């Protein structure tokens, strides 16, 4: 046997007093961790294959399994972590770029956790959402530049096309291909029931899902996969994807192995070919080119749908957003560096981009300084984990948030961050039929609806506490926020005061 440099990160612990050797774990694990030894009527596990996705743990009928982090260790070293050493072993072995999935897990500051919300006391009554109306309806889109009246003096409806949402949350772009059909169906049906929108990502739209078009954002990305007239017409809005928070400056690559059957058809590429989305759009090398694509898409759809331009949060995000706001876009989506992905080079995911909280604060501020904040709506994503994050994002200046990871977790994702292997045991990030069918869309969509319903209740409670009964009065209302443990510069960028001030 060759030298094994890498000791498994997780160990499968089996309680043999409980294990009945029913072999469920073996059948459930697409990574083939578990094995049945017929001779001894005993289950054993190969820890090295375990991705810690908890599928076996969740399905073990006798609760005989748990996964623990190994206590095997390198010699203590404050500079050379076990992770750094292991990654070098891997690259020394295969000469390749390290790949990862889902959002940046590294220990950077999470600004949402350093923001605290306000509540009313004495001078101003809090409002009980169970007794009084509490409004979370959101309009996304540009505002009219001036009011116009007809000959009888009545207001003309000159509002540019808008998206109307029942709450300030949408499901962010995840392509059919990167996630399964059943995951897509769950998202589409949940969006329709909730009165919000989901996003096709760059994988086209499966023909079965056209009926949810009113609740669909159709994405146009650099590979232009699955883009055609009917596709554009079927959505409620069109999103031009310029960047993604998990991999700013990088394109996408869906391996040919996943381009099978309906995915090939929906993407409009032959089976088995790699779907490569270039890093830039090759018709957009500058801001004026973006304007042309925005208006091409508006022309193609008769100016009936808002156009979203999605960018990754990078250093110069405020200036870029300001340029986009002057380029015909109705909505700007900003994806923070914690945003998820189906696959990205690890170094890019973990080291490129900036936190969404800071990006949002500076974009909102810049657009206001330039007097163009009402030209566009702002949607932010890149690790919105709870209703509190939603409320904080809105108070910082967002019109709405995108959630991706949170939605997948509702569908069963355990954040094992192994999407790129295509062997998702939860039927989400896989195209293997036997795995896909583990995700039942009837149950999946219900779990998404439950999650959003719960968040909506919580958002209303927090708003009511602040004495705010409509979400637009919270947007950009930074006096409702205070920082804890932040330095002067961070407070300045966030445009908030420190707690106690």
């Amino acid at each position, binding site marked *: 046997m060759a030298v094994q440099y890498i000791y498994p990160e997780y160990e499968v612990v089996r309680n043999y007093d409980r294990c009945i050797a029913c072999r469920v774990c073996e059948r459930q694990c697409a990574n083939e961790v578990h094995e049945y030894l017929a001779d001894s009527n005993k289950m054993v596990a190969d820890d090295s294959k375990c991705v810690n996705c908890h599928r076996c743990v969740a399905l073990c009928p006798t609760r005989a399994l748990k996964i623990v982090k190994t206590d095997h260790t390198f010699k203590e070293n404050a500079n050379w972590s076990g992770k750094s050493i292991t990654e070098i072993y891997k690259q020394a072995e295969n000469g390749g770029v390290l790949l990862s999935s889902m959002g940046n897990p590294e220990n950077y500051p999470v600004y949402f956790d350093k923001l605290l919300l306000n509540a*009313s006391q004495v*001078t*101003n*009554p809090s*409002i009980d959402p169970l007794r*009084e*109306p509490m*409004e979370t*309806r959101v*309009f996304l889109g540009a*505002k*009219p530049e*001036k*009011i116009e009246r007809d000959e009888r003096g*009545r*207001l003309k*409806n000159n*509002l540019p096309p*808008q998206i109307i949402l029942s709450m300030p949350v949408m499901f962010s772009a995840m392509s059919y291909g990167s996630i399964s059909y059943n995951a897509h169906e769950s998202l589409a049906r949940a969006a329709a029931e909730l009165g919000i929108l989901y996003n096709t990502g760059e994988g086209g739209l499966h023909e079965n899902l056209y009926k949810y078009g009113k609740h669909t954002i159709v994405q146009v990305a650099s590979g232009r996969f699955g883009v055609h007239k009917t596709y554009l017409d079927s959505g409620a809005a069109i999103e031009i994807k310029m960047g993604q928070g998990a991999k700013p400056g990088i394109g996408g690559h869906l391996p040919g192995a996943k381009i099978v059957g309906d995915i090939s058809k929906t993407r409009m590429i032959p089976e088995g070919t790699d779907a490569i989305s270039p890093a830039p759009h090759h018709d957009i090398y500058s801001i004026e080119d973006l304007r042309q694509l925005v208006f091409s898409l508006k022309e193609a759809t008769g100016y009936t749908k808002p156009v979203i331009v999605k960018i990754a949060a990078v250093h110069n995000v405020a200036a870029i957003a300001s340029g986009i706001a002057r380029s015909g876009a109705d909505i700007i989506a900003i994806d923070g560096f914690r945003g998820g992905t189906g696959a990205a080079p690890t170094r890019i995911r973990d080291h490129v981009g900036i936190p969404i909280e800071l990006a949002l604060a500076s974009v909102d501020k810049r657009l*206001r300084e330039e*007097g163009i*904040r*009402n030209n566009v709506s702002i949607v932010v994503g890149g690790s919105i984990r709870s209703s509190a994050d939603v409320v904080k994002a809105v108070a910082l200046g967002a019109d709405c948030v995108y959630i991706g990871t949170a939605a997948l977790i509702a569908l069963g994702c355990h954040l094992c961050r192994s999407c790129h292997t295509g062997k998702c045991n939860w039927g989400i990030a896989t195209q293997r039929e036997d795995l896909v069918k583990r995700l039942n869309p009837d149950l999946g969509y219900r779990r998404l609806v439950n999650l959003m319903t719960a968040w909506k209740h919580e958002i209303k409670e927090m708003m009511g506490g*602040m*004495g*705010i*009964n*409509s979400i*637009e*009065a*919270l*947007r*950009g*209302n*930074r*006096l*409702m926020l205070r920082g804890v443990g932040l330095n002067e510069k961070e407070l300045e960028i966030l445009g908030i005061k420190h707690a106690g001030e």
Partner: protein
Amino acid sequence: MKEGMFRNVSGCAISGIFSKSGRRFSGKLIIDSITVMHERSNGLGGGFAGYGIYPEYKDYYAFHIFYENKSAKKECEEYLEEHFDIINLSKIPTRKVPQITDEPLIWRYFVAPQPTKLADSQLDEREYVVRSVIRINTAIDGAYVFSSGKNMGVFKAMGYPEDVGRFYRLEEYEGYCFTAHGRYPTNTPGWWGGAHPFALLDYSVVHNGEISSYDANRRCIEMYGYKCTLQTDTEVITYIIDYLHRKKGLTLKEICSVIAAPFWSTIERKPQKEREELEYLRSAFDTLLITGPFSIIVGFEGGMMALNDRLKLRSMVVGEKDDMVYVASEEAAIRVIQSDLDKVWAPRGGEGVIITLENGES
């Protein structure tokens, strides 16, 4: 610390009296009304606005200015001379009242924009005046224009409103409309500029409440050239009304549907035309929705508007007798000056009561 450097939350009393026939009456009436609500203020601010009080100068902007010292006055007057033709200037007459102390220099100027400067600016006259006022208030240290409309004036100070009225000899003014404010701030404002009404051009606002949408409203309105130097609700509400009415051309009724918009559930029950209009206003001007408790009386040339927040979290009553309309935080403040009312009612939340002169002129 003086107001403007921190956010000062206040409770209040408000009162307004309006003669629809345009008959001018003495300012004594409004003092009598607001006096009844003494308990609703705490002596840290009171003030009045009177309309139709300067008929002899009705074509000129009446600037009322606080100066903290003579050098501020000198600097401000230089600015005024450069940008305006000054028709008349004088100290605003006051009387010594033991309760009112630490008064600044209080001056009044009747002015018209300097024609060549106005032409050079390429602004309309009222915008020119607004920008000049904001300029003085933000750039000249120690000078503060607290009234800038035509044929109207604001009078305000630190103290209880009834004392402030006597201080300014308000009973000597006659107008077709007066509004009054007694303030109950949680912190001392530290200077007279923090008292209410707050005014810009002929718009004046007296307000009772604490709006929870403050920072959303402030950050929105500051995009359009306004500067919220006082950090008070009244200031931002005045700017919103000025913006929507003067700059955007919305009617007052439409403005009510923006700032105290009906709930979506209410809008959905309206007939189609009205529903579309309300939906339009709510979505087009969504950031100017005001939430949290407020009752306001807006004075403007030839009219007065009373409005409550959409949940009616502050008391406000309207009474009518012949050509007179009365609005106050408490009915007692109306009854004390007119016990025999034809009609008295409490407007619902978000229901604007708009009163204008019958002949359409002031």
